[in-house]
């Protein structure tokens, strides 16, 4: 590693100076030692996998059958279906709740605030179980409703933060032009707020995508459920580890792709001249403490 690369990487921290030749040599030794330790750890995991016979042909043979491939793909399709419903509905619910929280009518504002704070403080799984067990809904509606209530409430806060982060002059100028409050919101504030908050909104959708896996716990036939079915098959010598090794890269990969898309959008929006009057949020889910 060159000094320049190291410097570039660490430029933003207050922890180190640019290393001199002796420090660099020392770091090289540490680097080799830690690489050896990490590689050793990986080798040990690989050894464990081989030692417990995870790579035998019997354990991997189920994936050759068309029926099982279709089962996995159907599970993936059901996961994506739940994600699609949940994301569209939570964006809509978020917009409605944000409008409520920003309303000039006090009762409406209080009702929206109570709703948002309650569902943000409640574990999404408790909501899903409540809808599934107590209201006796089917698995898919229960999962989608639970995800929508939670993510909609979080997105409401995101939208509200976005609207409030638009420079004050924008609102004042719009009112000075004689626009009504709905016009100010729809033509001036909301477009800029959405641009500013798009990275956060997409990051929240990553949370929704990850949480579709909760459907497994209420017997919704999604991706993990398909994996569980294959893994508990005695004919193939209980291929649990192979199933995990196939399912997790796909699931994690989908989430990473969406996270990466959020980062890309953040970089793009920051360059755009249309976000001059607003600060573009970083590509992370909202982390505001409840109650403010």
């Amino acid at each position, binding site marked *: 590693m060159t000094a320049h690369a190291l410097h570039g990487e660490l430029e933003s921290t207050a*922890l180190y100076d640019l290393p001199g030749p002796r420090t660099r040599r020392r770091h090289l030794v540490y680097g080799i030692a830690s*690489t050896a330790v990490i590689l050793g750890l990986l080798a040990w995991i690989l050894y464990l996998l081989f030692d417990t016979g995870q790579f035998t042909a019997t354990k991997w043979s189920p994936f050759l059958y068309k029926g099982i491939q279709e089962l996995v793909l159907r599970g993936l399709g059901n996961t994506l279906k739940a994600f699609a419903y949940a994301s569209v509905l939570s964006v809509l619910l978020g917009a409605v709740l944000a409008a409520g929280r920003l309303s000039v009518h006090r009762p409406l504002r209080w009702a929206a605030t109570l709703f948002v704070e309650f569902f943000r403080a409640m574990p999404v799984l408790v909501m899903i179980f409540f809808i599934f067990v107590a209201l006796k809904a089917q698995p898919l509606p229960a999962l989608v409703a639970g995800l929508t209530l939670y993510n909609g409430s979080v997105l409401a806060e995101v939208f509200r933060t976005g609207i409030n982060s638009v420079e004050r002059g924008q609102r004042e100028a719009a009112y000075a032009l004689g626009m009504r409050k709905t016009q100010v919101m729809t033509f001036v504030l909301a477009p800029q707020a959405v641009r500013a908050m798009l990275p956060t909104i997409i990051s929240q959708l990553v949370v929704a995508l990850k949480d579709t896996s909760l459907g497994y716990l209420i017997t919704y036939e999604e991706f993990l459920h398909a994996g569980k079915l294959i893994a508990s098959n005695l004919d193939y010598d209980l291929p649990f580890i192979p199933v995990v090794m196939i399912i997790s890269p796909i699931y994690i990969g989908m989430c990473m792709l969406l996270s990466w898309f959020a980062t890309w959008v953040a970089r793009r929006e920051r360059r755009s001249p249309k976000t001059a009057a607003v600060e573009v949020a970083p590509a992370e889910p909202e982390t505001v403490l409840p109650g403010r």
Partner: protein
Amino acid sequence: MYVLTENFALYGKGFWGTVQLTVYASLLALVLGFVMASFRVAPIGSLRVFGTVWVNVLRNTPLTLLFFAVLLGLPRFGLVLPFQVFAVLALGCYTSAFICEVLRSGINTVPKGQGEAARSLGMSFGQTLGTVVLPQAFRSVIPPIGSTLIALAKNSAIAGAFSVNELLGTYKTLSELGYNIVWTFVWIAVGYLIITLSISALFHVLEKRYGVAR
């Protein structure tokens, strides 16, 4: 309505299970997150890569998948531990990735000049870190750590879906006993609200005491 008073012991046990799980997993997440954050700002390339991979993989892993893999997978390697330990491991490792990012961005908010000034006064690395950089970073990470730990408390409900020694898990026993399911859930919800709102209150106090108005 009588669900709570007649089953106070059961609810209490579930509540206590959730509190324990939250506390232990929080401690693991804070320690592991600190270690990973120090890897990510270390001047050694391989440690940085390890930290980055850890964070990016765990942040994009569905927690149910992690529970599924840990609870049912680790026993295949001959590692048989009580359920509680597995739950703490899964929750702690998952949350450590978020804690790591919070700490790292906290360290990055400390201006570079602070460290340079400390070193030009002759302070060692340990002194710079302990008396200049970390105290300033600590002030700016209080709210995000609070919301990460609240997320952890809420995520502990997933453990409750796998076992009964946890607040959400109590609904199975109670519905078998024939109690009104809606009220059962109302009291479960109240239990979770108590936990999340107390963490929130704790961090509001911490922020008032140590945080800085930026």
